[in-house]
């Protein structure tokens, strides 16, 4: 046993797969300790907030200010306000107003604004300009005008007695707050989803639930496949024919179709994560049963089995002690593959809207479905679905890697 574990951990592929899987598992276990929020709590008002650090504006006002005189500050401010579209619009107006196109440099913000302020006249009519365009340029002008000034912004509160606004302070362009000194800062590494939920917290919880679904489905499928394979392979005869008849029936019907039909007929209300795992488990045992059966058939005529029979052991003892250990490595590998395909099957079902119906825990498949329904892929909100895809891919990849590694250890013919 010790020796076997040693040789397993000497296989590079297995170790790589195991490391990835362990990292995912560790993340799933440790993250909730630091962020104990319920995973489906709606924190954002609005959909698909971009990933980033969210600093409370209200708390920044009361945080101690520090004055930093930075040269690029105003340029940066203007650059962030003045979008590429606005620049092109300015250029269009200027060209229409008679400025030669060669003199206009879109990248040089200061020069562009200078040209704009010296030439812009809201009453001037440029050829081919609609009324809507005119209004747009007026709005643009007011937006840009404030940018170059360095006077501060006043903060005022309503006096509850008189109802009059009273200025309580000013914020200058050179005022800074230390993020550490602001009372409320929320990091959303993966932004929020369509319901306004923190995607990372949701993803961690979803990974956990999906792994559980995969584990339950994998164990059920492997157990059914193993028991049927052992019985039909060892006992043979009529029992074998009957079991193989059922197995072949299941092989012919694509298991995913079966999965969809069963999921549908169970009904929305009863379809929790555990039920979905059971349904996946009960439809995916077929290949395990066939593979175990063929291995058992080749084992049952071996001399050590004959010797065990001659020693008066019962069928149960022979199956458990003389057959099972010989196929144990195969069963472990089959279990790993069943777990990973269980996770994939859940994702497939959920995308079709037949996944677990749950309001208190997400699954990887459900996250994909929500992202799809709210068109995250069309709107370019990558953080709502891409991390989910990566997680599913990493889990299945790590498991397949472990499986290949084990295969090489147990099957010396595959060693490089």
């Amino acid at each position, binding site marked *: 046993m010790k020796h076997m574990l040693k040789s397993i951990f000497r296989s590079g592929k297995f170790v790589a797969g195991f490391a990835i899987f362990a990292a995912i598992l560790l993340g799933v276990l440790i993250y909730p300790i630091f962020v104990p929020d319920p995973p489906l709590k709606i924190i954002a008002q609005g959909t698909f907030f971009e990933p980033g650090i969210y600093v409370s504006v209200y708390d920044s006002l009361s945080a101690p200010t520090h004055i930093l005189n930075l040269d690029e500050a105003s340029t940066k401010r203007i650059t962030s306000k003045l979008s590429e579209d606005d620049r092109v619009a300015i250029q269009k107006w200027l060209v229409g107003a008679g400025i030669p196109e060669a003199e206009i440099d879109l990248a040089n913000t200061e020069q562009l604004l200078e040209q704009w302020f010296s030439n812009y006249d809201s009453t001037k009519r440029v050829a081919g300009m609609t009324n809507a365009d005119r209004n747009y340029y007026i709005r643009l002008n007011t937006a840009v005008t404030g940018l170059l000034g360095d006077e501060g912004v006043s903060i005022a509160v309503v006096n509850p007695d008189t109802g009059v606004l009273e200025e309580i302070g000013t914020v200058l362009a050179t005022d800074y707050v230390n993020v550490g000194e602001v009372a409320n800062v929320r990091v959303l590494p993966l932004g929020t989803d369509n319901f306004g939920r923190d995607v990372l917290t949701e993803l961690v919880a979803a990974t956990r639930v999906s792994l559980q679904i995969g584990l339950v489905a994998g164990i059920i499928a492997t157990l059914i496949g193993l028991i049927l394979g052992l019985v039909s392979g060892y006992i043979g005869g009529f029992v074998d024919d009957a079991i193989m008849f059922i197995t072949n029936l299941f092989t012919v019907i694509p298991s995913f179709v079966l999965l969809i039909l069963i999921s549908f007929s169970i009904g929305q209300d009863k379809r929790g994560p555990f039920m979905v795992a059971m349904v996946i488990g009960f439809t995916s045992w077929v290949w395990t049963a066939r593979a175990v059966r063929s291995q058992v058939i080749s084992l049952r005529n071996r*001399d*050590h089995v*004959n010797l065990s029979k*001659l*020693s*008066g052991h019962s069928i149960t003892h022979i199956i458990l002690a*003389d057959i099972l*250990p010989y196929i144990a490595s195969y069963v472990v590998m089959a279990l790993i593959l069943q777990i990973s395909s269980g996770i994939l099957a859940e994702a497939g079902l959920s995308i079709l809207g037949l996944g677990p119906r749950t309001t208190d825990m997400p699954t990887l498949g459900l996250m994909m479905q929500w992202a799809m329904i709210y068109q995250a892929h069309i709107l370019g909100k990558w953080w709502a679905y891409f991390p989910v895809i990566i997680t599913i891919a990493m889990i299945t990849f790590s498991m397949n890697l472990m499986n290949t590694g084990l295969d090489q250890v147990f099957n010396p013919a595959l060693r490089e």
Partner: protein
Amino acid sequence: MASEKKPCLSGRGLTKIFGLGNQKTLAVDHVDFDFYEGEIVSIVGESGSGKTTLAKMLLGLISTTEGEVSFLGKPRDIRSQKKKREYWQNIQAIFQDPFSSYNIFNKIDSVLLDCIRMRGGANLSKEKKVEMMTEACSFVNLKFEELTNKYPFELSGGQMQRLMIARIFLLKPKILLADEPTSMIDASSRATILDYLLKLREETGMTTIFITHDIGLAYYVSDTVYIMEKGLFVESGPAEDVILNPRQPYTKRLLNDVPKIYEEWDLSTV
């Protein structure tokens, strides 16, 4: 003389057919035989002649297609697990390949303890069991202290086959079926294995059935020889008669195939 001998294991019209329809293979074809108590019988034939299939039928490991086996004059009844166990207390086997005869996950002790349990000694004290195992091992010149807690694959082929004989020593069956017990062993250990087998037979007086392709070995050890070709017994009788005056061409061929030192080997018959 012949009237004193009691048939211990006999078969009438014993047949085994594998497969169905076109793929039917007649492995053993209506063979009749009587193995007498205390005799050493050899079944000789080339590979594929049905020797091992016959052996497995005699052991009750595979079913018979036709015919019946009588054990101690009565038709053999092995329909239930309990009756099989009783039958196997009387008939035991040594297999051809010692390397595949052991469950590699079980320690050597468990192989021997199974035999003690089979003889109804499950409730004996631990010391008594160790004593029995030590005795069995020393019979075949193995040291139990060195073997205990070891796995079968840590032994050499010869040691494994000797352990098999130790197993038979513990079981003391009425009939021993040895299916090519020496074919996987190197020539120098071969004689030792045979010696232990013959010594064991001497002590217990059990009927021994050797299954072999080596007609020289059959002549060396046996009282009665059966020559098997394509599932049929083509010739049988006392070893001296069959081997010194073969009547069938197949027997003559088997005899010619035995390599002899100082003589050119006749390859024309192969």
